C-alpha cells in the first residue's frame, strides 16, 4: 500500500510563505465535512514556519523550518482517542474527525510537536490534514507542495519500505525521533536549523596593507581529536558546520606555509563568528 510522506529541504526554504497561505486559503471559511471544520481567520498555524538565525555580522545565516502535523504512524493523538475520533487512513494520513472529536480539547495536548490547534468557536481540535480531501478528488499533491517555489517541499506516495530506503540513502531526518511517534514528514539539511557553526576570517598584513588570506589551513579540534579541516577561501573565511550546540571547548588552529600559525580557543554555545585572525605581520602583531 502506498502511503503519503513529505520531504522538506530546509536549505531550500526561502520563507516565502506560499505554503502557509495555501493552507489558510484552503481552510479558512471552508467546511470539509469528514475532514476538517473551518479554520479561524487568524491565530491557527496548521502549517508553521520557524526561523533560526546563526552567527553574527558579518558571518550569519538564516534557516526556515516548515512544521505541521507529522501524520505519525505511532500517533499519540490517535492512541488517546479510543473511540476512533482520531484515526489513520490506509494512505498514512491522520484525520481528526471534526464531528466525533467535538469538544475533545485534550487532543491538543497529546501532540508532542504542538501541531494540533484548538478551535474555540467550532469546539474542535484541528490540524493540517495533508489535503486528504483534495487527494481524494484526484489532486496529485497537497497544496503546500504544489505552491512551493523552490521545490523545498515535495510529497511522496510510496510504500513504507521505499520511503525507508529513500530516507536512509538521502540522509533524511525526522523531528525529534526520540518521541518515538514515527513521523511521515522528513527533513533534508536539518542541520541548518538544529546544529551550529564556528566561523572566522583570516587576514595578513604585508607592507602596511591588510589582505584576506586564502588557502590557510583551518583545523578544528576538540581536545586531542581533530574534528574537521578546511582551507580558507579568497575572503580568508572558514566555517565549520554541523556542530552540536553547547558542545563545549574547541580549538581552531590556523596555519599557512608562508605566514605562520595561530590557535584560537572557542567555547561553543550557539553558532559563533570568532572574528578576524591575523597571521603574518610583525611578531608583535602576531602576539596581539
Amino acid at each position: 500500500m502506498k502511503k503519503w510522506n513529505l520531504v522538506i529541504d530546509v536549505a531550500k526554504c526561502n520563507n516565502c510563505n506560499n505554503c502557509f497561505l495555501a493552507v489558510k486559503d484552503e481552510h479558512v471559511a471552508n467546511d470539509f465535512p469528514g475532514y476538517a471544520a473551518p479554520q479561524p481567520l487568524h491565530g491557527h498555524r496548521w502549517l508553521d514556519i520557524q526561523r533560526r538565525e546563526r552567527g553574527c555580522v558579518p558571518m550569519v545565516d538564516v534557516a526556515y523550518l516548515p512544521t505541521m502535523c507529522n501524520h505519525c504512524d505511532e500517533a499519540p493523538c490517535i492512541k488517546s482517542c479510543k473511540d476512533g475520533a482520531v484515526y489513520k487512513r490506509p494512505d498514512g494520513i491522520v484525520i481528526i474527525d471534526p464531528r466525533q472529536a467535538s469538544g475533545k480539547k485534550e487532543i491538543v495536548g497529546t501532540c508532542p510537536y504542538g501541531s494540533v490547534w484548538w478551535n474555540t468557536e467550532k469546539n474542535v481540535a484541528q490540524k493540517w490534514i495533508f489535503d486528504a480531501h483534495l487527494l481524494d478528488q484526484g489532486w496529485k499533491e497537497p497544496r503546500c507542495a504544489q505552491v512551493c517555489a523552490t521545490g523545498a517541499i515535495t510529497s511522496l506516495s510510496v510504500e513504507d519500505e521505499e520511503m525507508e530506503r529513500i530516507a536512509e540513502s538521502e540522509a533524511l531526518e525526522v523531528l525529534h525521533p526520540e518521541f518515538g511517534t514515527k513521523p511521515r514528514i522528513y527533513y533534508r539539511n536539518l542541520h541548518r536549523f538544529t546544529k551550529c557553526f564556528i566561523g572566522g576570517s583570516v587576514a595578513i598584513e604585508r607592507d602596511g596593507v591588510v589582505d584576506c588570506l586564502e588557502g590557510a589551513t583551518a583545523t578544528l579540534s576538540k581536545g586531542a581529536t581533530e574534528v574537521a579541516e578546511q582551507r580558507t577561501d579568497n575572503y580568508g573565511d572558514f566555517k565549520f558546520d554541523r556542530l552540536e550546540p553547547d558542545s563545549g571547548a574547541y580549538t581552531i588552529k590556523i596555519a599557512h606555509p608562508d605566514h605562520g600559525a595561530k590557535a584560537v580557543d572557542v567555547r561553543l554555545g550557539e553558532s559563533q563568528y570568532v572574528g578576524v585572525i591575523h597571521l603574518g605581520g610583525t611578531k608583535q602583531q602576531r602576539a596581539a
Partner: protein
Amino acid sequence: MVNELKFSVLLFGVTWVMRFTARRHASFRDHLQKKNCVVQIKLKNNSQGRIFEFNNGRVRSRRGIHPAPDAAVIFKEAATAVRFMSLPVNHAARIHAAKNFLVAVEGPDELVSWFMQLLNMILTAGTEFGTRMPDGAQRYTTMTTGGPLFVYVKDGKILRTSVIDFDDTDAPSWTIEARGSKFTPRRKAMVAPHALAWKSMVYSNKRLLYPMKRVDFDPNGDRNCQNRGVSGYVRISWDEALDIVSGEILRMKRQHGPGAIGIYHSSHHQWGNVGYYLSALLRFGNAIGFTKVHLNPDSWEGWYWGAMHHFGNSMRLGRSGSYGTLRDCLHEAEMIVFWSSDPESQFGGYGGQEGAQRRQWAKELGIKMVHINPYYCPTASLLGGKWFPIRPGTDNALAIAIMHVWITEGLYDKEYVATRTTGFEEWRDYVLGVADGVPKTPEWQEPETGVPARDVRALAREWGSRKTYLSVGGGGTAHGGACRTATGVQWARSMILLMAMRGWGKPGINFGNLQGGAPVDLSFYFPGYAEGGISGEVSSTASAVNNYVRMPHLLTMNPVQQMIPRQRLPEAILNGQCEGYPTDSLSLEGQFRRFAYPAPGFSKVHMLYRYGGSSFGTLADSGRFARMYRSDELEFVVNQSVWFEGEAKFADIILPACSQFERWDIGEWSNTAGYAHHQQGQLSHRVIAMQHKCIEPLGESKSDYQIFCDITARLGLGTYYSEGMTEFDWCKRVFDASDLPKRVSWKAFLKKGYYVVPAEGEKTREPVNMRWFAEDRPKDVPEPHPLPGGYSGKFRTGLQTQSGKIEFVPQSLKRFDPDSPDRPPLNKYIPSWEGPRAEALYRKYPLQLVTAHARYSYHTITDAKDSAINDIKDHRVLIDGHYYWIVRINVHDAGRRGIRMHDVVKVYNDRAAVLCAAVVTETMAPGVVHSFQACASFDPLDARGSIVDRGGCMNLLTPGRKQVEKSDAMASMSCLVQIEKWKQTAEAA
C-alpha cells in the same frame, strides 16, 4: 438599393434574434427586462426605419418612423448601417462611423448604452465560462500582480485560489543546455505569496460595501475640509453619491475652469487590461478633463535619472535588457554579485517566483554568490555566499574603490574600454586621485562604507578575474534598492561603469540574476498594461505603438495640459505652486524638460479624484499628504476604493469599487509593455488569462468601469465613454486585437481561462543582451529603441548616447548642467545628506532606516485589510490585539536601547513617529534598521496633532527631498531615525 434592402432585412432579423436569444438565455432575458422603452433605428433622411418596443422583457418591432422614441440610432445612409450591423462585428467600421458623424445616437445615455449592450449580448449570451470540477465547484481563472490563479467557486463563493499546473494540452516548456546539464522549468505558474492572499482580501472586513459620505460634509453648505481623516461616515445611496460626484465635476469646470479636477492614483492596484488605471481610469479622466498627477519612476530612480545617461536605454528608464541572459549566465558565468538585490523578496516586480527555480540551478552549478547589502536578505540566506554589510547610501564609494583596484592591478578589459567607451581617462584620473589628490582606495572607502578594505580588495580581484553577472535591485537589472537612496543616482551610474570596465555583453558578463532572459516567444502579441488598454490615450501611454492600431476604439485626449509631480502634490495644494521633471522614455533629454504648476492659464486643483490603493506607505514624507487633505483648497475629495484604508478615510465621498474577482477583465502575466518592454522574459511560460467574473460584486460595490460609466452617463458622456460596451465586450475586443485568435478560439479561451504561449524555437531564441555592442555589430535584440532618429550613428548601430558608446562622463549631463553640484557629469562620490555624514542630524538620529519594497504585499495592495498576510510572522506581529508593522534592529543596537524581541517600539525623527514591533536580529549591519515600505494602513493615534502612526507607514519618516535638485528622484531609502521602547500607558495618555 442593395444596401437599403440589406438594412431592411437586418432590422427585421434583429427582432427575431433577440426573441430567440431571450428564450434560450436567462442572462439575456434579465438584461432585456431592465427597460421598458421605444427605440428607433433609422436612416437620417427618414426613408427607412424600424421601431422596437420593449415591454416587460418582450420585444416587438414594426417598420416606420416614430415621432418621439425614447432613444434612437440614426445612420447617415444605408451602406453605413449595413457595415455597422453586419456580423462579425467590424469595430473599425463602427468607430469610423461614430468619429465621422455617420451614425448618431439620441436619448438618455443610460438607455442607449443598455440598448447597445443588448445587441452585443446577442453574440455572447450562453457562453460557457470556466471548468466544472468533481465536487461541483466551477474553476475560473484570474491574473494578479503576483501571477495567474485558478479560482474555485462554489455556491457563489470563492472556495479557493490555487497555482495553475499546466496540462498536456498546454504548450511544451523550453529546455536550456548549460555546462552539460539540461534545465527545464516546472510545468506550473509559480506565484508570489501575495497572490495567494486574495480570497481573504475579497472577503475582508475592510471592504467598502456601499457608498458613503463624510458625516460633516455638505456639498451645499459647510464642507468641513479640516475634518478629513477625523470624521466618520454615513451610508448613502449610489444615486446620491453619483449625483454629488458628477455635480462637483461640473461645478469645478464652471466655477474654477479647466484643470480644477485632479486625478491621483496609486501605481499598482489590480491587474487587467480593461480595469487598470492606465485603461478605464485614464479614459474617464480624458472624458472629463483633468490635471494629471504625474508619477515619478519610483522604483527606478537612480537608473532613470542617472545610469541612463551613460548608456541609453531610455525606453526601459535606464535599465538594462535581459535577452538571452538566462542561458548565458547558466552556461558562462562564474559568479553573481547581488548588489542591493533581493529577488527572493521582490519577485522581479510582477514575475511571481518564476526566478527562484533558476537561481537554484545556478547554485547547483556552483556559481558563486556575493551579497552587498546593509542587511542579510532572504536571497542571501537562501543562496549563501559572502555578505558585505554596507552602510546605506555609501555604495558608490565601494564601487569606486573596486574600480581603483581594477585600474591599479590591471584587472579590467582594456580593449573594451578603449573601443567601446569614451571618457575613461578622465574617470580614471578621478579614481586614482590625480585631480583631487585623493586616491579612491579600498582604505579610502572603509570609513564610509564600513566594509573592510581587505574584503573590498578580495572582491575586486575575484570579480576582475571571473566572468560575473551583476544583479542590481530585485529584478537583477533594476527595481528598488539603493537606487532609492539619496545617492541612488550615483550608485546606479557606477554600476554601469563597473560593467563597462568588465566588458559588458561578453560571454558571462552582464546584468541579471536569472530572473530575466528566459527563452519565451516575445514576438507573440498581447497588449501590456502600459499600452493603455481601453483608454484611447495615445500620447501618454504606449498605445500608439501597437494597441491603437490593432484594437479599434475611440481616441481620447485630455484637454488639460497641466501636471503635478506626485511627490510634490502636497506643495501644489498647500503652497499653490511646484515644479517637476517628467518621466519620459523617448530620449535621454526628456527628463530635463522642467514643468511648472500651475500651468499657464489653467485653474489650480480644487477637487481630487482619488483612485486605487493607499499610498501613505509608499510616498516619501507622506505626512505631507495628510496635511494636504485637510486644506480648504481642496473643496472636494472623492475616493474610489475597494477597502476602507489609508486615504479612503480622507474623502468626502467614498465610492465602493469591487475587486477584480467580481468583474470581467483580461490580462497577461507580467506584461507591462512600455517602460518594461518584454518583461515577460522573466517568466518560464508566458500566460495570458481571462480574468473571469468569478463572483457577483459584494454588497453594493461596483466595478471601476461601471462607476465611470455611471458618472459619465450623468454628464452625457456615457456612450462616448463606454462605446456601448460592457467590460466583457471590451475583453473580447482586447482578445481580438491580440495574436490569441490565431491560436485559440474565444469560446475555448473563455472555458479554459488561460493560454500558454509556446516557447521560442531553439534556433530562433534571442541573442544575448549587449553582445552585439561588445562585438561592435548592428543591434540584433528586439528593442525598438532608440527611436530611429535617436541613433547618433547609422540606424541600429551603437547606443543612445551622443558617442554611441558607453560614456564614462556623459555628454547629455554635460550639455544639460555641466556644473551640477548633485549630479556632476563625473560621477564623484558625494556623501548622503541624510546619513552618517549629516553629522548634526546623525547625532540626534543615529540609526539608518532602510525601507525596501515589501515582500508579502505588492506595494500596499495586500497589506492590512485583516487579510491572511497579517498572520505571516515576517510581515506583521500581533501584540495586544494589534497587528504591528515590523522594524528589524541589530542585536547590539537593540540591547543598548533595552529593546527585546517583539517589543512595541517608537521609530521617530522630526517628521513623525511610527509604532512598530521590534524584531531583534543579527541580519542587520550595526546602525542599520530595516522595515518594508508599503503599509496600507494609516492609523495615527491622534488624528489631528503630530503624527504617531501605529499603522506602520514608514514613509512618514522618510525625506521628501529629491536626490537631484533638477529631477524628481525620490530618496526615501535614506532616512535617519531613533528608536525607543514604547511606553504605552505613559505616552498614549
